[in-house]
Structure formats: C-alpha cells, structure tokens
C-alpha cells in the first residue's frame, strides 16, 4: 500500500542533501571547537560559518545566534532565561491562549516562581487581538511571547504589529517561530523581534538542534551551566554535525522557500475547497486567508478525531487530530477551545499539513479518503443526525 504522509507539522524528514553535508563532521572533522589545535579550528570554522548562514536566514547578526538542543530548549532559554534575568524590572509576562503547549507549561512554571501570566484571547480564526494585548500591558510587564503562527490551526499572527507595540512600550518581544519557519519569511529587524526560537527539523534539518535568537543588548540567564560555550549562554560541547545540518537546511530553505510556498498553497486551497464542498457539516478551523501555506485543518460534526486518525492509518495515510483521545492529558486541544469551540466540536478535528516531499498524488489520495472515512464514522455515531 502506498504510504501518504500529511503530518509535516509533527515531524519532517531530513533532506538528503542536508545529510550529505553533515556526514563529514561525524568522523573526519570531528573536533571540538574549544580545542586550540588544527582539528579544533576546523570545527570552529564549521560552527561559525553555520552561525553566519543561519543568521542570514532570519536577517540577524552572527553574534545573535545561540545554538541549543532544539526549539524547546530555545523557548525555555528565551522565556525563563529572560524572566529570571529581568525579574527586578517586573514580574508580569503576556502570552496568548494559543501558544504551543511548551509555552503554556513554561508559564505555569514561572507562576510558581512568582511571576504573573496574562493570556491574550484570540478571535474565532485564532488571531491575537492587538487591542486586547495592549489592554493587558502594565508597568510590571517585562515580556510578551506570541508565536508567529499556530502549530495546530496554522493561523499567522500579526508579528510585525506586535513587535512594534512591544518596542513602543519598552517590553521585550519573544516569538516561537517553529511553526512558521520555512513557510513565512522571517526578518527579526523589520519585525522588532528581540528573542526567538527556531528548530532545525522544521527546515528539514536533523532533530536535536535549535537556535535561540537574542538581539544585541538583550540578555538571558543561562539555564544550562557548564564550560561556557555559546558565550556562556548555553554550555555543553557544540553538536557540530547537527549545527552544520541546520545550516545546510536553512540554505536550501532560503532558495526553495518561495517556490515551495506557492506549491503548498495550491495543495492547501484544493484540500480546503474540496473537503468543504464534498463533506456535509464540515468546517475549516483557523483563518480563511492568513494561514500557513501547508496547513488545512477541518472539523466534522458528530465524529471523533482519533477514530478518523485510525481509519486513515488503515488506508496508509498519516495525519493529525486535535482530539483529546490522542493526547497525553485526554483534554481537547487548547488551541481549538480558544477559538470558541465546544469540547465535542474540538474532538472531531483533522489536521493535514503538506511539505517538501508531498505530491499531487498524495493530495488526491487523501481527498478521496476523507468523505468515505467521515461518512462511515457518522453511520456509527449516535450524535450525528442528518439534517
């Protein structure tokens, strides 16, 4: 059976060209950048060249890039590190209701450490309201963290406007760019971004590598203490093959991005139109226009997401859902709830995310399967009544 993968938001395959570029650094050029001999110098060159290229990808300067073990660590360092370093200035932090779960959990941690967290609501399409954001700013606010785009429903936030507002108010602006990177052009200078998290895998690089961008004059407390690598902000010997991988991934992305976005948009718009046309009582989650090119997110009345996912699994199709039954907590997606859905509505969700290796065929196969799967599950359902 042909396998179809439309869950690029969850994980992306590493680009083969990236893997080729990394190989040398496992055995041949294996040095530690902290060593002062030739072998160490080769590693330093690879590290610094990578830093430069990745900085270029987001229009940052080289000394604003700090390598981490992934986006989660970058987010921890950016938010916790900044909060702890600046707690004398204030103890209030603003996030949105639809941040990635890692940010909600960091917020809970900071609340236990004595910080106050406000969450900005979003509209029915998942967009943060600037007016409501501004209402929440107090003289104790030190940090605003709002993700560039939703990892679930794909809604793109007004990052530039948020950055401008934060700058006017003299508040640091952190953004989790993981869902957006590679799908939205990132320019940290233009958008007034002070702190930002990136992952390597979302650029088709290896997992286990990420970047915290930290604008000059902004400082964080390190959360990993050790030998003082990355100017003391992130200790631990650098993962040179991984970092080089992220660099190649960023370079390829920079070249391919515009073409890819156009291709994904075609897939997305075709999926949205056809599913809404062919499946009765189906709805689009997220924003009708301002959404990631790769993201189509639906909900179907009267059925549950995990059974949709299992049915697709039997057809060789890998997709995602916001259903509680697939989560660790058995709670439905906080993002869907924040857009105003009832629990039973949030349960019937289907997330399709295309990526670099998706084909027209993949989209055809999924589009053929969706109406069949939905109607079979509806036949079983006591709460779906045909109108």
């Amino acid at each position, binding site marked *: 059976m042909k396998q179809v993968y439309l869950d690029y938001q969850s994980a992306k395959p590493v680009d083969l060209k990236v893997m080729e570029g990394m190989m040398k650094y496992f055995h041949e050029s294996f040095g530690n950048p902290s060593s002062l001999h030739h072998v160490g110098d080769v590693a330093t060159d690879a590290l610094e060249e990578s830093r430069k290229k990745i900085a270029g990808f987001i229009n940052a300067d080289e000394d604003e890039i700090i390598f981490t073990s992934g986006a989660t660590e970058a987010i921890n360092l950016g938010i916790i590190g900044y909060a702890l370093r600046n707690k004398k200035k204030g103890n209030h932090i603003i996030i949105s209701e639809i941040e990635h779960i890692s940010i909600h959990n960091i917020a809970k941690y900071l609340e236990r450490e004595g910080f106050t967290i406000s969450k900005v609501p979003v509209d029915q399409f998942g967009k943060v309201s600037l007016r409501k954001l501004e209402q929440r700013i107090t003289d104790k606010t030190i940090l605003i963290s709002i993700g560039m785009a939703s990892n679930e429903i794909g809604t793109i936030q007004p990052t530039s406007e948020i950055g401008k507002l934060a700058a006017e108010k003299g508040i640091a602006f952190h953004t989790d760019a993981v869902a957006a990177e590679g799908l939205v052009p990132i320019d940290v200078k233009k958008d007034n971004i002070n702190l930002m998290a990136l992952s390597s895998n979302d650029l088709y690089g290896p997992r286990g590598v990420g970047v915290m961008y930290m604008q000059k004059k902004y400082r964080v407390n390190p959360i990993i203490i050790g030998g003082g690598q990355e100017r003391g902000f992130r200790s631990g010997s650098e993962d040179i093959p991984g970092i080089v991988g992220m660099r190649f991934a960023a370079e390829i992305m920079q070249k391919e991005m515009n073409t890819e976005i156009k291709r994904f948009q075609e897939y997305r718009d075709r999926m949205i139109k056809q599913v809404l046309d062919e499946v009765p009582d189906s709805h689009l989650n997220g924003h009708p226009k301002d959404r990631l090119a790769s993201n189509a997110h639906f909900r179907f009345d009267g059925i549950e997401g995990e059974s949709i996912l299992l049915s697709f699994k039997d057809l060789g199709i890998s997709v995602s859902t916001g259903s509680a*039954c697939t989560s660790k907590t*058995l709670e439905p997606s906080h993002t869907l709830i924040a857009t105003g859905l*009832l629990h039973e509505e949030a349960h019937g969700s289907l997330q399709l995310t295309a990526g670099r290796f998706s084909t027209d065929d993949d989209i055809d196969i999924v589009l053929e399967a969706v109406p069949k799967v939905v109607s079979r599950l509806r036949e079983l359902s006591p709460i779906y009544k045909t109108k």
Partner: protein
Amino acid sequence: MKSTKYSEKVLDHFRNPRNVGTLEGDDVAVGKVGNPTCGDIMEVFIRIDGDVITDAKFRTFGCGSAIATTSMTTEMVKGMTLDEAMELTRQDVADELDGLPPIKMHCSNLAADALHEAIKSYRKGRGEDVPEENEKVKEEVECLIGKDEFLNKGLYLNVEDINEFKDRRTLILYSGDESVETAINISEVSERVILLTPDETLVLNPDLAEKLASSGVKVLYQSKLLEIRGEFEVEKVLIFNIDEDEDYELFVDAVVIIE
C-alpha cells in the same frame, strides 16, 4: 504504551464493528452513557425474552477503543441472563479484547456501564425494585456572576444594530421568541451564534422552529450561564450542563440577555 497502540482484536472490532444500529419494540431496553464533552457517547440496545438477552445493538461516538468496546460488549451479552449481564465488568470487556492501553481503560470503556443502564431501565419499567446509586441532587443556580460588570463591555440587554455583532462569537440566552429571532438575525453576520436554554427542547411555532433549524445558530440544551468572564470585556463564559452536572468555559466575544 502509546494511547493509540491497540491489540489486533481492538483494531478488528474498530474496523468491522459488530451489531451497529438500534433496536425497537416493547421488549427492548436502551442504556446511554458518556457525554460529548469527555469525548465518548455510547448507546446500547438489548432485546429481552423472559430473562435472557436475545439481541444487542449499539451506536458510539468516540475513539477507536470506544467503538471496539461497545462492539465487543454487544457480542458478549447475547444469550446472557440479565443477572449475568449485570455482572459483566469493564475489565471483562477489556480482557476479551486482549487488553486496552491504560489511559483508555476509564473513558473509553463505558460500554458495560451502558449495558447496566439498559438492564436497570428495563427492570424499572417492569416495576421491579432497582437500587439507585449516586442520585445527585442538582442545585438550582440562579445568580449570574459578572452581569453588572460587563454591561456595555460585550454584554447586551437588547440588540439594536445587528452589525455590531459582525464576526463576533455571540452567546444568547433563550427567553422566548424574541431571543430566537435575534439569534437568527445575528447569525446573518456572524458564523458563531449559540443559543442557550436550560430546557431539553425549545417549544416554538413551526415557522420559527423551521427558521432556526435552517440557520447557523447552534442550540445548547440543558445549559445555564453561570458566569461571564474577561479581563476588560466579555472574553469567555462559564456554562453549566444540567444533564452532565458539570461546568466548562467557552470563549465568546458577546453575550445577549433579552429580559
């Protein structure tokens, strides 16, 4: 164990559920458990001849294990006496399916409970003495918190200009025909209009009922508004579900209470 890692038997019952459907007749009893909020609803129908279950059918809204456990339950009970069926436990059903992931043992394995509900209702219907467990006394909640605070901040006591509600998620309390008409009107400018009523059904004239059914208004029955919440204006509401005896938050932008 991954929450979606199922045994072959579970997957078989998910893919080919046995006994899907409903039963009708004087010798049929129905049991229903679960609620859409927690993600599973199961209905079990049994046909009873004397003291023996002769047929069983089901309908389920829920995840893979919810579908599989209900299917298996209907297979297991055919031919059982009512007493035997009352003894059937969630664990028996799970064992027969070669086990369930631990996280699914509770919420998705309510089929045995639905069966017991059906038997109890059958016995009650025949005037037999059935012990009642956990009969909850439902508190009447009359006082709405936040009503004064949010007046003119997203809370409306009358609607003059429908366009003020454009693209705003709006909650309307049912208070007669006018509230229904208002809900239908607002649904012309907003995709998300919810009409809240504590009753099980709405008694409307056929014309208005028809209009409501064909509008985009979503009706929440057996529901009460407990509290309006928000930092500076209406941002969410706390709703109490009378049937399930539980409350939950819903994000909205406006609340309309026509008195």
